[in-house]
C-alpha cells in the first residue's frame, strides 16, 4: 500500500467525519429523512481492503459520529456490521473477469446499475440497525419504517451526487 493511498484514506476519514457532524447533522428532511453520508466512506474503501482493518476504521468512524450525535454506540454498532458484511457482498457481486486489485467500487468505476445493487442493500442494513436500536423500548413502528426507507433513499441520492462532484473516474481502460 503506497503512502499516497494511506494519506488519501486518512484525509477522507477526517473529511467525512467533519462534514457529517458539522453540516449533515443538521440536514434532516421533513423530520424523517436523515443524511448519514459517512457510510459512503466505508462503502468506497478499495475492493482488496481486508475486513479486519475495515472494521477497525468503521469502529473509529462510528464512535466519532456517535460523540456528536449523543447516540453512544448506536452508529458504531451499525457501521461495524456494515463493514463486516461488505467483503462478502463484494465477492457475491464480482463481475465476470473479477476486480482490479485496488479498484474503488464507486459508481464512476462500476456503473450505475452495479452501484445500485451494491450500495442500496448495505445502506438499508445500516439504517435498519441504527433506527431499530435507537427506537428499542418505544412502540413506534410506522415512523421508524418511514425513517428507514426515506433515509436510505435520501442517502443513496446524496452519495451519487457526492461521487459525481468529488470523485474521479479511474484512468486507463
Amino acid at each position, binding site marked *: 500500500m503506497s503512502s499516497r493511498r494511506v494519506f488519501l484514506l486518512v484525509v477522507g476519514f477526517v473529511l467525512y467525519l467533519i462534514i457529517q457532524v458539522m453540516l449533515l447533522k443538521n440536514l434532516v428532511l421533513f423530520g424523517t429523512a436523515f443524511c448519514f453520508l459517512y457510510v459512503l466512506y466505508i462503502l468506497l474503501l478499495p475492493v482488496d481492503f481486508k475486513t479486519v482493518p475495515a472494521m477497525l476504521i468503521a469502529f473509529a468512524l462510528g464512535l466519532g459520529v456517535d460523540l456528536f450525535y449523543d*447516540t453512544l454506540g448506536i452508529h458504531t454498532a451499525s457501521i461495524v456490521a456494515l463493514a463486516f458484511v461488505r467483503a462478502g457482498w463484494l465477492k457475491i457481486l464480482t463481475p465476470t473477469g473479477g476486480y482490479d486489485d485496488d479498484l474503488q467500487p464507486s459508481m464512476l468505476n462500476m456503473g450505475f446499475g452495479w452501484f445500485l445493487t451494491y450500495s442500496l442493500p448495505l445502506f438499508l442494513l445500516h439504517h435498519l440497525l441504527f433506527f431499530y436500536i435507537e427506537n428499542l423500548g418505544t412502540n413506534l413502528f410506522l415512523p421508524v419504517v418511514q425513517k428507514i426507507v426515506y433515509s436510505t433513499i435520501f442517502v443513496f441520492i446524496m452519495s451519487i451526487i457526492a461521487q459525481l462532484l468529488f470523485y474521479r473516474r479511474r484512468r486507463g481502460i
Partner: protein
Amino acid sequence: MQRILLFLFRVRAFLLFLFLEGIAIWLIVSYNSQQGSAFFNSSNQLSGSVLTAQNNVVEYFSLASVNRNLVEKNAELLAELEKYQKPADSVFIELDSLLLHSFQFKGAKVINNSINLSQNFITLNKGSNHGIREGMGVFNEEGVVGRVKGVTKNFASVISILHTDLLISSKITSSEVFGSTKWDGKNPKQAKLLYVPRHVTIEVGDEVVTSGYNAVFPEGISIGHVLEVKQGTDTNYLDITIELTADLSRISYVYLVENNQEEELDELYQSNGISNE
C-alpha cells in the same frame, strides 16, 4: 492445537466483529441510564470545543429571534417584579427566607441540539466549573427544555424533553390535576400527558405547567397547552396530547434551576420508601 489456532485465525474477522459489536452494545447499555458518565458524549472536552467553534459561526443567524424572545422575557419578569414591591399601606407578610432561597437560577448557551431522533440530547457551554450539576432542570423563556444528565468541567449534556424516557411531573392549571409529561417520539412539537384519570374534565387549550412535586423544577414553569383529549383505549387514564410551548428546534439560550433542598427531599422520600420520578 495447531488446527484450533488455524481455525481461529481463519475466523478472525468474525471474532473481531463480535468483539467490536460487544463494545458497542456495552456502550449503548451503559449510556442509557438517565444519569451517566459524561465522558463519551458531546459534553467531553474535544467535541465540546469543536461544537463551540461551530456555534460561534452559526449563532449569528438566530440573533434576531433570540433578542426578541429575551426582550419578551424581560418584560414579563419586570411585571412579575412589580408584584413583589411592598405596597404602601397594607400589612405585608414576609415569606420564610428559606423558601425564598430554595431555588437558584443560572444561564447557559446551547451548542448542540437534535430533535429528530427518539432520544434527543442537548449540549450546553457550561459545566461543573460554573456550578452546573447533574439533575438540574433546564428551561427557557418559552417553557421546559429538559434535565441535566451529566457534566464535565466546561460542558453539560442535557436530556431533552424530546426524549422518550424523560418524565416531567406536571399539572393542569385550570383543574389542578397532576400528571406526567412524556414525549411519544413522533412530533417534536407535541407530547403526551400521562396518568390523568378519566373523571377529570379537561378543555382544549388548558395550560399545563410543572407541578413542583419532584423538586427538579419550581412550580409553574410552562410546558404546553392541551391540544386534544381522547378516551384512552385500555387503561383508566385519559389520552391527552399537549402542544409544547418551547420550540426545541430553535433554542439558543436556556436557564438552569437548582433546588437547594432537593437532597433533603430525596432523603425524606427514600427513608419513607417513596419512589420519586
